[in-house]
């Protein structure tokens, strides 16, 4: 499948890695960390939605589980932050597998699938808002302990590099999927499930595996979030905001591509910041923009910015070749 090579990915990551060496502005680093985090979460969504064609409206379920497991294991069971983080990813993957097993075996797809994922996320949110273990309405605060062993750092740069590394891993995973038989099967499921079955693709199993990978990547984002912000509650963990950002980034950037979520996350977050600059810190305004952007992108560039760029490149190449013909011909 066409797409960036591993070398390309390494190059982009290397360039991004130099940013903390070029600036010490906390504002810039914070912005980029959040953007990369959304890119990570969006990449998770991309595996199931972009490549698999199954649009989940409830990816918060995995983000929140990753965050809560990381937080709960640290604060209630005294487990070190790093293994807690890893278990958070495992927890998210498990939730993904469970939801996937229930929904895909029932043959749910399209709007029904979107609906049921929405419902699962909402159930988790309500449970988390009343359960003692998640801190109910109050949430969980991670105690300040600015040591690398505790997955906390004095400056932002290490956080930046960690989320960048996580993103890099997700980019590589997606590229490997693109080049594998599993990836071919996944895309076949997206394009036409019956035709896929007719040539031997176990569509239920493929979707399930994709969902689990998708959930794991998104859960990593959740775990990182709680380590960076040191606070989580049911609205942040399982709220609609993250379900929407998870799908907005890949759709804006380029659904079903390796770099789409990264590009989309940067664009979306930049739009959010610009909005805040122009209109001040009003609640809800950034989501207004996101809603509008979603409608506009679907209307005018349904395959995202990367496909717009590709189309422009083709048109540019045609112009140049016809121009040179004009000169010679």
């Amino acid at each position, binding site marked *: 499948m066409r797409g960036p090579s591993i070398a390309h990915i390494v190059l982009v990551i290397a360039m991004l890695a130099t940013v903390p060496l070029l600036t010490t502005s906390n504002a810039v680093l914070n912005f980029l960390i959040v953007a990369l985090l959304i890119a990570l979460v969006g990449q998770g969504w991309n595996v199931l939605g972009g490549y698999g064609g199954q649009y989940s409206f409830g990816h918060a379920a995995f983000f929140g589980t990753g965050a809560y497991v990381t937080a709960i294991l640290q604060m209630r069971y005294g487990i070190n932050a790093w293994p807690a983080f890893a278990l958070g990813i495992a927890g998210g993957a498990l939730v993904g597998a469970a939801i996937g097993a229930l929904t895909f075996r029932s043959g749910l797809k399209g709007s029904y699938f979107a609906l049921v994922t929405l419902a699962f996320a909402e159930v988790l949110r309500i449970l988390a808002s009343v359960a003692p273990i998640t801190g109910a309405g109050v949430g969980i605060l991670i105690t300040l302990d600015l040591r690398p062993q505790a997955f906390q750092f004095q400056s932002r740069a290490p956080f930046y590099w960690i989320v960048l590394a996580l993103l890099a891993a997700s980019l590589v995973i997606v590229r490997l999927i693109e080049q594998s038989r599993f990836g*071919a099967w996944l895309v076949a499921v997206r394009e036409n499930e019956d035709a896929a079955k007719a040539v031997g693709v176990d569509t239920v199993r493929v979707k399930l595996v994709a969902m689990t990978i998708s959930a794991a990547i998104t859960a990593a984002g959740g775990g990182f979030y709680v380590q960076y912000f040191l606070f989580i509650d049911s609205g942040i963990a399982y709220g609609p905001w993250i379900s929407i950002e998870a799908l907005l980034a890949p759709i804006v950037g380029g659904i079903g591509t390796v770099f789409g979520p990264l590009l989309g996350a940067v664009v979306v977050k930049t739009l959010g910041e610009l909005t805040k600059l122009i209109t001040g810190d009003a609640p809800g305004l950034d989501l207004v923009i996101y809603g509008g952007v979603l409608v506009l992108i679907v209307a005018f560039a349904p395959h995202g910015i990367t496909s717009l760029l590709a189309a422009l490149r083709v048109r540019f190449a045609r112009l140049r070749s016809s121009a040179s013909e004009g000169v010679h011909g």
Partner: protein
Amino acid sequence: MAEPVLRVERAFKRFGGLLAVDNASLAVEAGRITALIGPNGAGKTTLFSIISGFMPPSEGHIFHRGADITGMPPHLVARRGIVRTFQIVQPFAGLTVHENIAIGAHLSRRSRAEALDAAAEVASTVGLGDLLGRPAASLTVAGRKRLEVARALAAEPELLLLDEVLAGLNPAEVATMMPIIRGIADAGVTILMIEHVMQAVMSLAGHVFVLAEGRIIAEGAPQVVVDNPRVVEAYLGHGAAARLSAAGGVHV
């Protein structure tokens, strides 16, 4: 005699009050091209869906080389070597011709590179070799039919179920497709084809089953079946056979 590649034994299929398949039995011998013909709405595609696992029969059994595969899910039936095409073509529209066929090839190949190579070979045998990079959605009807066949072929089936691959093709396209089908059979693939284009049935099929209103009403060599008055009546209506023989017989 060896166990037939496929045996359908007294299959029934009910949809609510409608009996789409009514006590249908047939057998497909290895290495032959067998045709399944009959008027529209006879239940032929339903039978294909039952054989390939897309729906279970209400009653009856399907045997593949003697093994009972009734109710087996479609992807497992395909992995056993029975691959179907669809009457209304189902390409992977967002992918290229090459990628489409490669997905078929992936049934028996793990490596992407191998699958793509195998796909390219299959593409040239059906005449799509020059169109590998084209998006599947940009092909003509004839091209899409070939793509459908190529993708199924790349899965290296033992039994290929062709559902009206010639429908919608003009005579020139039919003439190009027929040798391709003959070539597939010559390479050792058993074919069961649903077809309306009689010219193809007559020249390609070694054995023919006729399905009308869900029931098998005749079987045998093409020439014999086509002259069968019951078959004529199924297509042309009650009393047609008598009228035609009065007027001078059936010509094909």
